[in-house]
């Protein structure tokens, strides 16, 4: 039995003659190590792989300068094989600005977490976007201070339990989360704004396309580009590793809705993305019901 589109099926009637072995490094070319120092279940290495492969695929490796913020992902600074400037917590967008102005032909991106970008450095990313600075800011948003051990950030969702919101984030007491992508998208200097996720294979593929579009935006010199990526942090959320994806999908992902927030000057709010998701889900459900009814005859 063969399925042409799948290629030949392996003969499983006998054990393989040779044991399994690594034939080539399972990593992007722009990573210096196959290892990372993150916790099990962390989503950040998935995002790292995505944007490094985008840079590689677009042929930008020899003109890219990275600017890293401070968080768990700071350990990527040592393993990323790109010219890199390590910035302070919150300050990467202004450092990127100085770099880009002096090296206008370089592709410059920042890598920041939600604590870094939305708490400590909120004004930096907004001003850089408003200026239309031709840089790309990448936000790894897990809704928690992972590195300090699970504390509330400006993007933690209502009801989310952290070490500084023990009974869950309460709007009355802790205030509301910030949907940073919406703030950035409204600014005239922002050319491309998207929110992706890495909680499933499909989400990873979609996020990787967002990285590509962001870097293409910068390459064209269109203005500021921004990709937010929702990343799992089971350690910081105090959930079992295997439940990371589900937890994210059902909590943070329900508020920070995935989708493109600004493309070609057209802004779509997170609320609109949510409505669209609801509408699509209803359509899918209706289509399934119709198909079922047709089958029943």
């Amino acid at each position, binding site marked *: 039995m063969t399925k042409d589109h799948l290629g030949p099926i392996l003969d499983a009637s006998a054990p393989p003659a040779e044991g399994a072995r690594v034939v080539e490094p399972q990593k992007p070319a722009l990573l210096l190590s196959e290892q990372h120092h993150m916790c099990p279940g962390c989503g950040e290495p998935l995002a790292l792989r995505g944007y490094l492969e985008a840079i590689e695929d677009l042929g930008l490796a020899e003109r890219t300068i990275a600017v890293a913020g401070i968080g768990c992902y700071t350990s990527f600074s040592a393993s990323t094989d790109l010219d890199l400037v390590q910035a302070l917590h919150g300050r990467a967008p202004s*450092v990127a600005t*100085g770099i880009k102005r*002096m090296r206008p032909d370089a592709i410059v991106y920042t890598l920041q977490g939600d604590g870094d970008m939305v708490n400590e450095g909120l004004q930096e990313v907004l001003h850089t976007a408003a200026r239309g600075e031709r840089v790309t800011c990448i936000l790894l948003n897990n809704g928690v201070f992972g590195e300090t051990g699970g504390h509330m950030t400006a993007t933690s969702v209502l009801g989310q339990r952290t070490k500084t919101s023990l009974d869950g984030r309460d709007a009355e007491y802790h205030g509301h989360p910030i949907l940073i992508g919406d703030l950035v998208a409204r600014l005239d200097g922002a050319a491309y704004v998207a929110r992706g996720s890495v909680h499933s294979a499909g989400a990873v593929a979609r996020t990787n396309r967002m990285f590509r579009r962001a870097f293409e935006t910068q390459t064209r010199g269109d203005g500021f580009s921004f990709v937010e990526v929702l990343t799992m942090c089971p350690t910081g959320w105090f959930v079992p590793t295997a439940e990371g994806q589900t937890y994210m999908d059902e909590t943070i992902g329900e508020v920070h809705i995935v989708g493109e927030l600004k493309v070609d000057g057209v802004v779509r709010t997170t609320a609109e993305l949510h409505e669209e998701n609801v509408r699509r889900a209803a359509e899918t459900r209706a289509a399934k019901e119709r198909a079922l009814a047709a089958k029943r005859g």
Partner: protein
Amino acid sequence: MSASARPERRLMEGSEALVRASIAAGCRFFAGYPMTPFTEILEHFAALLPDAGGTCINAESELEAVGMAWGAAATGARAATGSTGQGLSLMQESLSEITLAELPLVVFNMARGQQDYFQATRGGSHGDARNLVLAPQDIAEGVELTQTAFHLADKWRNPVVLYGDYLLAHTQEAVALEAREFPPLPAKNWAVDGSTGGSGGSRIVTPLGFDKIGRTSRGQEGNFQYAASKIPEMEAREVRVETGWLDDAETVVVAFGTPAKFVKFAIDELRADGERIGWVRPVSLWPFPYETVGEAAAVARRVGSFELCTGQMIDDVRIGVAGRAPVRFIGGVSTDSSGFGVGRLLEVDAIRARILALHRDEELPPVPGADEHRFVPAPHQLEVTP
């Protein structure tokens, strides 16, 4: 410009002169946030840098100004930022880390008086960072030292603070913008340009002490040790000081910046009257000319520190004097209603009277205005706390 050609002298505001000197020194990036009396530095950079092929950004905050300068410096460009001491307080976190990242940067402090001495010389920030600090006494020296600042920043890969004030920034003098020549410096092969991606040898500019995987990292502690070991090397080589009338001086006055020029004038007058008084003017506040002050104190009977603050530099004067002579504070808080540091004590007659009182071991004349607002401890503050 050839050394023989005598450059034209032009009447120019101090801010403009410092900016033109910066551009002559190769500065191509400036970012700043308006704040009196620093604002005109930003204005002149905004007006003059684009034509020189550079960029000036009116940053949205001091935090962002220093961040932008950090990024520009990391590309190898000669970069600068600045503010008043208040604005520099906001920048301190970055300035400390820029030192650890070994980035050259020139930082203008057009200070509101002399109350930022500790900030300038004690790093002002967390960690063990030291900034080289140059304090010109007037615009002509400011032009010279601004160029020195850019050279020293690159020479040591360290921030250099140019400590000025309202008078330096806002008065006009006839100055010659002479481009100075310095010994050649090595190429900045550490600077990022984006070209090394994927080579396995990509660059990293970081204050954290770690290198790319596959190369030997200093590590955090190692980086602190490394930065610490640079301090005595700079200290041993970059002391700048001017002295006058020290040979037979019974009394030595130490002063820096604009007020030092007033002190020198007053002492010249007192010398004409036969008073044996001399002066030491630290041109570099860090490294401080401890040796010169110590040598002067070994001959003198008394040393005075004249500063327009509560007495900050006097700590360094005492370290330099090292007990060889009594040290007395003869300055005081003196500012105008706007807080720009041009107060009633910055006046030759007032300064001469204080120097003379020091010289005669008499009581100092009161600081004008000092008794108008005086803290009186309340009874509970006089009680001993167990």
